[in-house]
């Protein structure tokens, strides 16, 4: 199987996997299968899916380094975009059903509730990343694109804090996400990221960032 085909297969799997939770939720809404409080289920599963997809986004670069298989980088943008759209839907559901379209209530809540504040911050960090994920923006931003898109680490961290702060008692799952995030952040550190850095010969973090951008460009090219 050529790399081209493998990437295509993975993309297909990604689309199926990433759309599945959304389809299940829409189906649940239409058939009444979400129980007595469907909005809670919608908030729960869109938030959860957004967070899981963010974590997958972050794991693609380390995976690429571990496997040495560069084409996998082409999955990074679509996974990230799916994460963004779930986060946006998550916010939209909250705004429509919990805030009942009331901007005043929304602003009050963002200001007063720290878990909402950081959730909102996470979403806002993701907005410019989603906007600049087009080919045009990648070309225009050049090397700066990679730097900007490191913001996804910020968004994921805020997302995990958001989750940790909102649970009432059982923090095991939020802590598991925090541990996963810590591993991914450490994996990013130059010392761990470059498997065998020959003295003077190892690539700098900046260099690797550029490689990543180049990889995106290869896709465009």
């Amino acid at each position: 199987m050529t790399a081209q085909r493998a990437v295509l297969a993975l993309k297909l799997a990604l689309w199926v996997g990433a759309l599945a939770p959304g389809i299940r939720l829409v189906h649940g809404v239409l058939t009444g299968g979400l129980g007595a409080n469907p909005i809670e289920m919608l908030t729960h599963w869109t938030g959860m899916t957004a967070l899981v997809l963010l974590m997958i986004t972050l794991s693609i670069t380390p995976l690429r380094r571990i496997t040495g298989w560069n084409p996998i980088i082409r999955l990074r943008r679509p996974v990230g975009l799916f994460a963004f759209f779930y986060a946006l839907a998550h916010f939209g559901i909250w705004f429509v059903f919990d805030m009942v379209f009331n901007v005043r209530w929304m602003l009050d809540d963002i200001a007063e509730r720290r878990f909402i504040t950081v959730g909102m911050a996470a979403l806002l960090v993701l907005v410019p990343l989603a906007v600049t994920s087009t080919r045009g923006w990648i070309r225009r931003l050049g090397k700066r694109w990679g730097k900007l898109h490191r913001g996804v680490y910020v968004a994921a961290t805020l997302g995990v804090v958001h989750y940790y702060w909102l649970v009432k008692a059982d923090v095991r799952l939020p802590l598991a996400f925090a541990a996963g995030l810590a591993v991914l952040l450490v994996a990013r550190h130059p010392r761990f990221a470059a498997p065998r850095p020959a003295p003077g010969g190892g690539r700098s973090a900046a260099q690797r960032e550029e490689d990543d951008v180049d990889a995106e460009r290869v896709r465009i090219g």
Partner: protein
Amino acid sequence: MIIRRAPDIRSSEITPESVYVNRRQFIRAATAAGAVGMALGPRALAGEEAAQSQEIPARFARMTSELDEPLNTYEDVTTYNNFYEFGTGKADPSRNSGAFRPKPWKVRIGGECNRPGEYDLDDLLAGVTLEDRVYRLRCVEAWSMVIPWYGFQLSTLIDRVEPTGNAKFVVFTTVVRPEEMPGQRAPILRWPYIEGLRMDEAMHPLTLLATGVYGMDLPNQNGAPLRLVVPWKYGFKGIKSIVSIDFVEEMPLNTWKQQNSFEYGFYANVNPNVSHPRWSQARETRLPGLFKNHETLMFNGYADQVQHMYAGMDLERWK
């Protein structure tokens, strides 16, 4: 057309069932009848022992709260609730409580009272008359339901065991059975679950010990075989599967306050003016509605009956 109403209870008097003729209510009653019919549908019956062996009595088709609110369906009441002993998800209690055995059941009554002892639940129930009580249930998480509980006033039990003058608070404890309650196998909360009431709250005529819902035995997920219902307080005060009742002098440390004293207090009176740190308590989602646009009432709509007990208290502080 005669419409019977759930009793409207005031502290001063207990109003008998009033009789109504009202066209608007008739229409709602017809709708409610449909809802109960739906609750009896095949989906609701699956795995639902209580509903399988008994039918929802016809009287509920016409019942509303004293504010004319329609009842939530049997299915909603029994498939969506918090009972962390069976898991933290709202559907976990109905899914994971199949192995729980609520019979036979003993309740230990102790502390500052003249007739302490270990009582068989059947003996405790022998002397009381069970009645329907339609109450709003307002969860601290800002959702609510209207539920026809079935039970008796806690005060009748308290009178029977004769608390002494030293009894200032009543403490309730939930059973600990990790083999039957999968949630208890993890330290999600510090088990056993503990709740308490001040003596006057416990004696209040609204305060109910429920053995059933919709006129039938409580299903395991709703706190079988005996639970507390205190309608002017947030739902977590309604401790489930009670195995002991103690009369004490000092205010007990209830489970959620122990878990997080910044967020939950001892009183936990429903109060739209005092926010939970993580969300406003001014509005609620009245299930099965979708929007959080139902205004929360002071003391959950029972202010006339209960506010005298808190006169002069800073409700911001004693939350």
